[in-house]
């Protein structure tokens, strides 16, 4: 053990002047902190979606059997995708409303720019306005809204109704009433032929 007889390090004598020892101390502490933070990153990043989940899986869907007024649900990236073949009345109902009055005025369409307005044209499939393709997850807390099956209650606006907390979506999948903050999201997709959709 060091005692008071141990000769003092001369660099410790003057306590106001920064010394070599101060520099070494700060440098060592700084490196340890940066090294520690760097070592922490793999521990945190391992929780992010892994390569198998990230590999942008695409799904091909045959929609030839879906008549007007019907809808199907398919899986993409572990999420349900709503594909609805809309009737004329449903399209008219969606168009007959001012975008500015919507709770969420943005289209939320991954195929368009982020600031595209939530008009029916921007929500429906390009040049095929009878088709609506959306991620079927309520933007409130992630429940699956009702409205896909023929007998389902579709809410006051004829689109979808979330049973968890009562959010109601119209026939273009736009939030109209309830706690959900955003319109149902639209995934990246394209028609590969008249009867086939490629999602992702």
């Amino acid at each position, binding site marked *: 053990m060091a005692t008071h007889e141990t000769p003092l390090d001369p660099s410790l004598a003057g306590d106001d002047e920064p010394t070599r020892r101060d520099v070494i101390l700060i440098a060592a502490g700084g490196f340890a902190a940066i090294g520690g933070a760097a070592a922490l990153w793999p521990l945190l990043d391992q929780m992010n979606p892994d390569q198998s989940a990230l590999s942008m899986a695409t799904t091909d869907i045959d929609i030839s059997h879906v008549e007007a007024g019907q809808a199907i649900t398919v899986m993409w990236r*572990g999420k349900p995708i709503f594909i609805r073949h809309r009737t004329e009345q449903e399209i008219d109902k969606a168009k007959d409303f001012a975008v500015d009055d919507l709770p969420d005025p943005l289209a939320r369409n991954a195929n368009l720019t982020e600031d595209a307005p939530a008009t029916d044209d921007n929500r429906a499939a390009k040049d095929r306005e009878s088709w609506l393709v959306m991620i079927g997850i309520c933007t*409130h807390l992630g429940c699956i809204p009702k409205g896909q099956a023929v007998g389902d209650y579709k809410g006051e606006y004829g689109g979808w109704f979330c049973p968890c*907390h009562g959010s109601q979506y119209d026939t273009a999948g736009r939030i109209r009433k309830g706690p959900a903050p955003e319109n149902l999201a639209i995934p990246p997709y394209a028609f590969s032929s008249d009867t086939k959709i490629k999602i992702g």
Partner: protein
Amino acid sequence: MAHPSTYHPQSGAARWLDSRLPVPRLMHDQFLAFPTPRNLNYWWTFGGILTFMLGVQIVTGIVLAMHYVPTEQGAFNSVEHIMRDVNWGWLLRYIHAVGASMFFLAVYIHTFRGLYYGSYKAPREVLWILGVLILLLMIATAFMGYSLVWGQMSFWAVTVITNLFSSLDAVIPGLGTKLVQWIWGGFAVGGPTLNRLYALHYLFPFVIAGVVVLHIWALHIPGNNNPAGIEVKTARDTVPFHPYYTIKDGFALVAFILVFAAMVFYAPNFLGHPDNYVPANPLQTPPHIVPEWYFLPFYAILRALPNKLFGVITLLSSISILFFVPWLDTSKVRSTSYRPIYKWFFLAFVITCIALGYLGSQPPEGWYLVLGRIFTVYYFAFFLVVMPVVGLIERPRRLPGSITESVLGPEETKAVPAAAPHRRTPAEVAS
């Protein structure tokens, strides 16, 4: 209280160990001879009950983990396998599942006891804060454990609760989504999510055990609060923890275990939800999602607000506000028994918590929603308005002169000054 040690090693071996690792001395001073107020009532037995419940959950949890499979395909089936095939599996799982409910029942009683008797006031603020921390860890652990069953309620509870974090998108666009995908390990709740919830569900009880040690440490510095809410003044105000409170805690524990066993053997699913016996289906949300009963008041508070972000903030505030209680309550008097005005507000608060629990189980519409909002307002007003204001304007009843006086009355205390029922412990007899 940090009292002088009364431990006297009885043998050469005990003396040898005492000068190297004095664990027997610690046990003797803290759990046998520990001076404890003589007036503790049965509300004070829940600390011991909670320690027992933590042990039960850890032991049954470890053996269940020997049979459980944390995969998307295997989870639900492995739980049914435990119920049907594993020797005594039904008993172990029911003890673990009902045990979670009993654990929360005990912790809520323990928390309300602390609130009623002002156990959070100086010098016990750190003790209280550690307790709130344990409550938070328990909530997280119970939530993760419930998810492991991977039934419909499990799956959708995880979906709804993890989606709460996506409300951060309203603050910084994209942050919430990024965070939720980090929690999920994918783009939806799935296998990776289940696996990490399992890993953390196994870890957290040991973290809780660590904080419990700190909680008891922080308790043993100032010593127990008591129903009179006044400090220990003389040795006559206390009795040694053993045998007085080992017996009292033991009796309460047996009574508690009777209720626990009745639930396990006669109504193991009474507090559960039948939907959780349906395997998780990511394509179909159950028509009515409800959490376990012990989360219902918080669920009602979450749903009382129409805005997602504010709902989440209110939910988090409803628990974290407990951290600030030692500084919100301005009254100098600890025990609510001596506070004639605050008493009624406290009763209203207990009723509010029960009412919120009921409303949390009902659909959030019509009158249920209106009442949910009214009770949510009172829940917060109790902490932010009642606690600071009533403490300033109230004139408390006269406090007894000492703990002994609160038990025996002022006349008796003076008449028989030597009446302290201090029984000598074996160690004291030996010395």
